[in-house]
């Protein structure tokens, strides 16, 4: 690959930083608001100058107490515990079940394989709103309403997108490897567990990350299925800051900043694995 000179790299980085600034504005606004008082968030003067507009973004005075108050306003540790528990179950369930199904689609020969795979992919077209009512009726009939089960069990039944992602990855692994293992007496489960899964670590990490993010941010599940405050999750619990007649914006932004930090750290630490997983699933067609 051609090596760029220092100044070329500097120019490229400068352009990318400028392009990235608009994307960071919501984050900066969130942190800025989290350090303001109510009067600063909703000033009663109309700002007409650019300097005034920029000054609005700077909290003055800085109110660090918003973070302590925000984390006490709702039982933040309880909601965090519930969220982490759900994330752990969902990540485990989604990754394992999707890998199993993807292996069957990629490496096993059986009648109707292509048709069933098409149907699985077709389910991605269905919006959640279409299936919301029948699934609610199903869980109610099963007696799962008010429990975590509607938010955990489906993760163990495969995720269409992850199945697709992992199938593509498994297809890049030569069949000769599997044949060699079979000749040596390895069972299909052994091939899957001891050969395919270790080789698929980047793709599995990608699926795990997506599932973690989805569960961490899930609002609809708790809204529909949870009635007990002791079971609330962070995403749903943060809504308690908002009201029709008055909202605690500063405290909400403080809690949201704390809510967002783990995701940002996770992404920075795992971004190489994440990008590698996305890239290698399609690179060898």
């Amino acid at each position, binding site marked *: 690959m051609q090596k760029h000179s220092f100044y070329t790299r500097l120019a490229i980085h400068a352009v990318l930083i400028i392009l990235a600034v608009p994307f960071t504005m919501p984050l900066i606004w969130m942190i800025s608001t989290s350090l303001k008082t109510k*009067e600063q968030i909703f000033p009663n003067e*109309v700002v007409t100058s650019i300097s005034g507009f920029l000054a609005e973004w700077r909290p003055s005075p800085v109110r660090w107490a918003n973070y302590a108050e925000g984390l006490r306003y709702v*039982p933040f540790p309880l909601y965090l515990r519930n969220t982490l528990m759900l994330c752990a179950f969902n990540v485990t369930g989604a990754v394992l079940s999707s890998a199993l199904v993807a292996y069957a689609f990629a490496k096993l020969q059986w009648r109707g394989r292509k048709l069933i795979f098409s149907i699985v992919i077709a389910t991605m077209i269905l919006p959640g709103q279409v299936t919301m009512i029948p699934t609610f009726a199903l869980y109610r009939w099963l007696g799962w309403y008010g429990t975590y089960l509607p938010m955990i069990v489906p993760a163990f039944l495969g995720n269409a997108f992850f199945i697709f992602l992992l199938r593509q990855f498994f297809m890049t692994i030569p069949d000769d490897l599997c044949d060699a293992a079979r000749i040596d007496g390895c069972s299909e489960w052994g091939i899957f567990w001891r050969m395919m899964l270790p080789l698929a670590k980047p793709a599995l990490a990608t699926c795990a990350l997506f599932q973690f993010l989805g569960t961490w941010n899930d609002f609809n599940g708790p*809204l529909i299925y949870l009635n007990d405050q002791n079971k609330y999750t962070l995403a749903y619990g943060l809504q*308690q*800051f908002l009201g029709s*007649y008055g909202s*605690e914006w500063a405290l909400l932004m403080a809690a949201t900043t704390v809510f967002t930090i783990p995701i940002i*750290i996770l992404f920075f*630490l795992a971004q190489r694995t994440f990008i590698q997983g996305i890239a290698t699933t399609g690179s060898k067609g």
Partner: protein
Amino acid sequence: MDAEARARLTPVGMALLVARIASVAAAVAVALWLYLGYTPPKRSSYPGREKVIFWHMWTSNWAEVINNICRRFNESQERYEVVPLTVCGGSLKTLIATAGGDPPDCMGQWETVIPAWAERGALTPLDELMEPGDWARLRDKMYPAVREIGTYKGHFYGLATGMNIWACYYRPSHFKEAGFDPDKFPKTLEELDAIAEKLYRYDKNNNITRIGFTPWGLSHWIALFGGTLFDYDRNELSICHPRNIDALAWMAGYSNKYGYDRVLQFQAGLPSTMEASWPFMSGAYSIVVDGQWRIQQIFEYMPNLDYRTAPIPPPAGGKENACWSNGNFMIIPSGAKNKKGALEFMSFWSGVSDPARAAEFYTWGGWLPITPDVANAPIYQEYIRKFPEFKTFVDIMSSPNVQVTPPTPVQAYLMHRLGWAEDAARREVMSPKAALETIRDEVDRELKNTRVSLKPAS
């Protein structure tokens, strides 16, 4: 040593490695504390009592007011314990919980849901829970608007715990500046129109820099003009009542005179209408129609603001002390496990059982009472002396000209389309009459789709 290993040993590589280890260690420490060391707060303080699960949508400092009311109820008796919970997306969640078979025992509501939910069997008729005659006695004590707000097809579904009334807020300094006496607020709409014209301010490019007055909320003006959206004698909607058309025509006249786009352009530049940003406080409006809760907001954010309140003046031939009203009310979903406890809590809060005691709750929230007994209680009268401008709203409560949202299962749809008609007429997309006829047909279709009759079951 390979390239990867060499990369790990550079300062940046070492820093990344340390960061990774520290993050993992921190995550493990937090997880261990959460699952082994953390004890969630207890939500119940009275073991052994019958629980009354109360859902509501108040948050922020309002939630503290609600918690205090619940605490007072729990301390006042020994049988029940009300357990309050702020529920996000409250209306949807309550409906889902009712359908799921696990609803709360009572819910604090302010959305237009009673007819729609009652029609679907999602609500418990409160009159059927009361002792015989209690409901009739309660109705007699209530203000006129309060009687109608929770009633649908002859049954009582929602007990109000605080009403909202709208009136004019105005700036005496603006009046003096324009040569008007601030002690003499207009008594008629015609006088208001004349004063408003003098209160508008413009810059050298003829852009608005201050709004004298601009009307909004067609439902308020329908009440003032003597129109009505619902004919209670015939139990049917009357969207195209002639006085409704007059009200919309008058509103459209303001847009025609001052320029719809010009006003919109000015309003778009204002911060927001929430709390401290309310444009009236900054002087962007000289006269504005708004609700009684603004008085506490002014006290909190701008206690030295010089302002007054007055009833919205009616047009010639209109109704005095009129406006549209809504309120907070309590409902009991069907399937609730502790309906008796819920009813007792609702009676405690609203002042049905003890108006003098409940009057204090109304002062905490700045709410308007549902009966004159509460309004006349010493503590409430003290509150009015503390906030003299609040008296305007209390006085309007007793007016027979205050109207509530029509008792139709398509209430929410009707109010939404009313907003569309107002916008269409003000933009001159269609005439006021055509706009109201359009939404009349739409609402009729929606009503037919829900396959209900508005007439009480015989």
